[in-house]
């Protein structure tokens, strides 16, 4: 069977986007922080909802409480966000609220985690 390029092009679209749609339907598609992929579907779902955080660095779903657990000093977080009473506040959201670049905040906070 000779295969023209259009068939390859269509196959690529079908396999990639169809595969992603199928993995979403099966609950294996998780795009936010999850380090342990052997923990089963429950673990993946936790990751998708942002409840689990990457223990080694600040990510888009990391909360103030998680950052403190990772070793980021409280005074550093206060310096950036002032009141950090709400430990469930997401750092990315706070950065946006205070007009800070999350990329820069993330890099700055990760220094404290790396040095632990």
């Amino acid at each position: 069977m000779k295969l023209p390029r259009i068939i390859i092009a269509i196959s690529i679209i079908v396999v990639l986007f169809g595969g992603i749609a199928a993995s979403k339907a099966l609950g294996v598609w998780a795009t936010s922080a999850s380090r342990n992929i052997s923990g089963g579907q429950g673990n993946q779902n936790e990751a998708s909802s942002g409840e689990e955080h990457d223990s080694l660095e600040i990510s888009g779903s990391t909360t103030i409480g998680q950052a403190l657990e990772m070793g980021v000093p409280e005074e550093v977080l206060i310096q950036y966000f002032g009141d950090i009473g709400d430990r469930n506040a997401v750092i990315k959201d706070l950065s946006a609220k205070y007009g800070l670049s999350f990329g820069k905040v993330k890099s700055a906070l990760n220094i404290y985690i790396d040095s632990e």
Partner: protein
Amino acid sequence: MRNKSRWYRYSMQIFFFVFIGMIAINHIFAESGTILFSFIPNVSLHAVCPFGGIESIISLVTAGTLVPKLQASTLVVSALVLVLTLVFGAVFCSFICPLGTIQEWFGKIGRKIFKKRYNRFIPARLHNVLRHFRYVSLAATILLTYNAAKLVFLEVDPYYAMYHFFTDEATIGGLIVLGATLVGSLFVERPWCKYACPYGAALGLLGKISIFKIKRKAAACNSCTLCDRQCPMNIEISGMKTIGHSHCIRCMDCIDDTSCRRNALVYTARKIQETVPAEDQTRTATPAEGGMS
């Protein structure tokens, strides 16, 4: 007419170049609280990078874990590209990879400047040595990623740098490699793919066992070597029966009318039946043709 089919590949390249760019830009802006494209998912490039599954293969097999920044979605995309490669060969490189695409675009400028000298600057003997470096790159990336438990390749990754060059997430090493790759593309077709890409190395090896391969009908071939000159990866197609070379990216440029006017090359899953076309029955094979068969 077949030449027009190149546009199917070009269209796919443009689509993925723009689509992946939109994913990257969306994520960059989302970090400062702005969603630019609401119809594009807000995910990091790491979450959809198909190389992630290969990079962290050791920790994945031994401990069932991925290195930081990689997600379960990375594995899904890796597996899907793996399936495509096992069926069609390394079509990811020729139809999808944005870094391959931008190298081709720079290559078109280089082709205009240097004309027939383009992609012929590196002597064949040196090319044959240099092309093995991408396997060193692959092995080093896998081992270093395992040892460091982080994405060490990110420090020199031109793909990530290409979509993040205006942010503080782009590394100096990545920007230097990207710049060198793009300048190199003005002289050599796809220099990164040919000599350094660890993912291309992995896909190329898998592509050797793909179901569909480009095959050469020796009886129809007059060894004009037009296909050799057309091949962006400098493969000597005219000397092979099956183009199972690990560097073949299945771009299909060699099977176009502009490369093979005798339809001696076909992309198929079947074994080639060596029958001489009726119009060629009277043609006498030259010793060179016999040698190439």
